[in-house]
């Protein structure tokens, strides 16, 4: 849609005039979540509902000889049992293709019994196709067939002149030639994927755990064979998406099919193991760098070859060099396809992977030419914002007082060593057109701000109210936010950190229109000019100081309800987020244990709509990166093509004991005339900073994630 012509005169208030935005606001969804009153898709219960469950073959590639659902169908309480998609002869990869049947029963327990009662007969293929060696073996079949077919290893194409780069490398003062890798990581949404489908009288209400309420309507309508006007999608709270919950997924399709078959409400959520098997992942990668620096601290050349591991997907990795300026580069990136579920978007797709390789190389280059790694970074970054931000995190982490700034430290008598490391981030953020917002004001002073937008737990519900409250001089609770329902004005999907950049301007547009409409009434009542009233503390005043309470101002509406519809206003948002992080770690050189003592992150975001929520986002980014850096890894048995890390005991994520002191800094030097999403940039460089801190502590360069004791001890030369 085209931007409205209001853009010229709808602006954010000046920073000095803000009383609600740019302050700490308690999230509106907080009390419901901590008391358990908030309902997630998992919690939806509808009278006469049945529980559906998928049946999966556990090995990556098998010949299927039998899928018999009759024993399941015969169990008391089982209402549905079907061979998925009419049956197939083989399972080609671990993931959606593993699904061979779906059952439904009166209770979740009966559904599990039914799923186990399905008789499966299969024979695993000799080559499970889950490693690079397996997919490149001479007799390896092509994993991708048909129209989108291709070889198992595919190059994206090279950029740069390799000969030029090698020539420069030959004369560089410091050279690093090393391999780095990151494993496949999972999103680990606390709430697994799935939905509840309530089909009744030719209409449907669907309760998916989703990152896109508005855009889900068409998908479910199509799967249910209904017109979009007859489908309503509701997601009031969701337990984590991180990029993995856009489409309805096979689980959504299965729920729709069962609902059509049994004509009862259907609840279908993946169990934890299925979540690990078929709910997507962040692709892994191997990255080989050959890089050189001059003794004046500039990166002169870089040759990079990288491979992405995204299962049946191509994976994600920006072409190196990542963020840093390099005089000459040659880069070649490719994809290795394996018989596992395709990677999905996950928090800044490709960037955390690229950050680990690039920040490690940059760090190694700095030490190779005798530079302080902080100063070396600043010499090779283009953005003034990054330079300013690096200085800030260095100050906060105590770099200037740190003893080992140009060479790594040594462990103390007890084998302990402390170090500091750095990393930077950048992310597009920006906006997508399509967000709206309706503001309604009643004569009794009730104000409602409504839009279909979802809240992934990050704070959109709060600013849907907060932006309107700010404009009308009301407290946060003076405005009721309605979100997460497709009958409300449409919004965008939450991906790429665009929700705020897209949605907040539309809310501000609706709020400004509403304010002006009320002001038009006030002109007649107390005199003044539109745009020349002051709205503050629940009162409105004209330029002469004549005041009315907000409620009395609304009474001027008489029997009318004031309704305004806001649209995306491009001038109110911006893109291009920058951040910098520092980590301080303690390494136990006897056991390889790494304790992160402190992390600092600074992030720009334009106008912070809710400082408390933004700091939470920044903390979340640091926590996610710490967990990625130290723990998370998908583990498969390579002979069977069988996932071993399919529970939260085995797929380790950081817990409370792993939490460092965290300092989340909002970059107040940024321009506040626009706003942008803060989410994904915060998760990009934390693990890189930790890796660099480990080296700085004790000279152990860990080049492969996760940085578990086996790898740290190996880097120390102790195993």
């Amino acid at each position: 849609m085209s931007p409205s012509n209001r853009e010229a005169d709808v602006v954010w208030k000046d920073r000095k005039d803000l009383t609600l935005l740019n302050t700490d606001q308690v999230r509106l969804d907080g009390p419901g979540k901590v008391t358990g009153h908030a309902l997630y898709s998992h919690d939806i219960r509808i009278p006469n509902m049945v529980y559906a469950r998928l049946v999966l073959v556990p090995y990556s590639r098998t010949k299927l000889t039998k899928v018999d659902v009759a024993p399941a169908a015969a169990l008391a309480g089982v209402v549905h049992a079907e061979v998925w998609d009419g049956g197939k002869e083989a399972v080609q990869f671990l993931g959606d293709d593993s699904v061979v049947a779906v059952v439904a029963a009166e209770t979740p327990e009966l559904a599990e019994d039914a799923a186990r009662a399905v008789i499966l007969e299969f024979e695993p293929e000799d080559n499970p196709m889950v490693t690079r060696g397996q997919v490149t073996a001479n007799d390896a079949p092509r994993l991708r067939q048909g129209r989108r077919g291709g070889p198992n290893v595919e190059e994206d194409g090279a950029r740069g002149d390799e000969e030029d780069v090698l020539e420069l490398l030959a004369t560089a003062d410091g050279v690093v030639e090393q391999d780095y890798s990151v494993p496949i990581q999972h999103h680990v949404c606390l709430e697994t994927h799935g939905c509840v489908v309530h089909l009744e009288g030719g209409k449907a209400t669907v309760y998916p755990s989703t990152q896109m309420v508005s855009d889900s309507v068409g998908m479910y309508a199509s799967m249910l064979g209904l017109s979009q006007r007859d489908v309503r999608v509701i997601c009031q709270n969701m337990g984590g998406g991180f990029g993995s919950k856009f489409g309805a997924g096979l689980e959504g399709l299965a729920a729709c099919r069962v609902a059509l078959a049994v004509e009862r409400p259907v609840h279908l959520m993946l169990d934890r193991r299925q979540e690990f098997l078929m709910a997507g992942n962040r692709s892994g990668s191997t990255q080989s760098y050959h890089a050189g620096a001059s003794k004046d601290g500039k990166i002169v050349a870089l040759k990079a070859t990288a491979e992405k591991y995204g299962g049946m997907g191509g994976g994600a990795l920006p072409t190196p060099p990542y963020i840093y300026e390099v005089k000459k580069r040659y880069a070649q990136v490719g994809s290795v396809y394996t018989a596992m579920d395709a990677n999905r978007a996950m928090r800044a797709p490709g960037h955390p992977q690229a950050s680990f390789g690039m920040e490690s190389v940059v760090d190694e280059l700095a030490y190779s030419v005798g530079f302080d790694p902080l100063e070396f970074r600043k010499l090779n970054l283009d953005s003034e914002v990054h330079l300013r931000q690096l200085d800030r995190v260095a100050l906060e982490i105590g770099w200037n007082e740190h003893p080992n700034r140009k060479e790594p430290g040594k462990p103390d008598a007890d084998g302990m060593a402390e170090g500091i490391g750095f990393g930077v981030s950048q992310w597009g953020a920006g906006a997508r057109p399509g967000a709206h917002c309706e503001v309604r004001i009643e004569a009794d002073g009730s104000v409602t701000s409504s839009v279909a937008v979802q809240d992934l737990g990050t704070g959109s519900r709060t600013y849907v109210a907060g932006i309107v409250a700010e404009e009308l001089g009301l407290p946060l609770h003076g405005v009721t936010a309605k979100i997460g329902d497709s009958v409300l004005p449409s919004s965008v999907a939450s991906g790429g950190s665009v929700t705020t950049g897209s949605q907040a301007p539309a809310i501000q547009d609706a709020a400004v229109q509403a304010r002006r409409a009320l002001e038009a009434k006030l002109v007649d009542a107390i005199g003044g000019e539109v745009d020349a009233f002051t709205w503050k503390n629940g009162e409105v005043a004209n330029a002469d100081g004549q005041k009315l309470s907000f409620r009395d101002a609304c009474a001027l509406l008489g029997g009318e309800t004031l309704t305004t519809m806001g649209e995306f206003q491009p001038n109110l948002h911006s893109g291009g987020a920058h951040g910098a992080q520092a980590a301080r770690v303690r390494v136990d050189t006897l056991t390889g244990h790494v304790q992160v003592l402190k992390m600092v992150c600074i992030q720009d975001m334009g106008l912070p709509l809710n400082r408390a929520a933004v700091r939470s986002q920044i903390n979340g980014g640091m926590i996610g990166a710490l967990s990625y850096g130290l723990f998370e890894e998908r583990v498969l048995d390579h002979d069977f093509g069988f996932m071993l890390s399919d529970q939260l005991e085995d797929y380790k994520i950081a817990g409370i004991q792993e939490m460092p002191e965290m300092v989340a800094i909002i970059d107040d030097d940024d321009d506040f005339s626009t706003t942008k999403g803060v989410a994904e940039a915060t998760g990009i460089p934390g693990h890189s900073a930790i890796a660099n801190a480990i080296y700085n502590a004790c000279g152990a360069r860990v080049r492969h994630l996760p940085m578990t004791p086996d790898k740290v001890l190996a880097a120390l030369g102790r195993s």
Partner: protein
Amino acid sequence: MKAFEMRLPASLEEAIALLPTAEGDESSRLVAGGQDLLTELKHHLVEPERLVNLKSIPGLAGATWGSDGSLTLGALTTLQDIYEDERIVTTFPALAEAARSVASPQIRAVGTIGGNLNQRPRCWYYRAEEMVCLKKGGRECFSQFGRNKYNAILGAGPSWIVHPSDTAPALVALNASVEIVGPNGKRTSSMQDYFTLPSSGNVLRETTLAPNEVLTRITIPAPAKGSKSTYLKFKERSSYDFAVGAVALNLTLDGRKITAARIVLGAVAPTPWRVEEVEARLIGRDLNDETIELAREGALAGAAPLSENGYKVPLTKGLITRAFRAISRS
């Protein structure tokens, strides 16, 4: 999980009568805190028809001190009750530290010492229902040539599991014994002999406990004068994890001179791994860096790592060093 009948016997005799007599018969199982058994049930590793709940039997929980300073723990004493008992903390620090290191506060509040000693392995392959490994009646230990980062480096073969208990190495180090009641009455066993290696015992089990026996009590003799103990557990994830390596150390010192030593390694072998030959070499030596090196190198001398668990050798050596230093400083 599969539906089961829950029985609440009033006496040990009644409980024992409800248990199967034949080896390999899993139709009836004991349950106390349930923290291991429930996960086995949920993952369909065992599917008993009946659970026999020991909690209905009086007198199986709690600490009793003998007039000689010995401690007897009922098998149903919770881990939390152990480490919150000040006298246990000061008398047997290794046990208190081991109990405190287990899992999470919620699990420690209901998990029992008896259950902790009788828990089953955590090996990835054992815990995956579809993997019919040696421990589950199959023909092969998949970890030997498969993924084995957390598996055994000592005493292993034909199974490479590690014993997951934290309290077991501590109790072996403290020279504890266990009371076991079966259809023919009571028997006692040293804690050390209670555990069996896959090469010498039944590979389907980790202990000498018969299907119709109940571990009822654990007794720890009074500590010798000058004895000091500690348990050091290494968790990859501090918040909540099984051990990747552990050391239980019980030294008796006369000044700096070692007069008795028990060194027991955890999470590196299919049983708590006592290194008696190393202990013997420490007697009469002063507790100093040279002695610590002797202990550390000797304890791991026989290690035979698999493809992915070689790091456990330096890691465990590091823990041994730390344990000795902790006692040296205390």
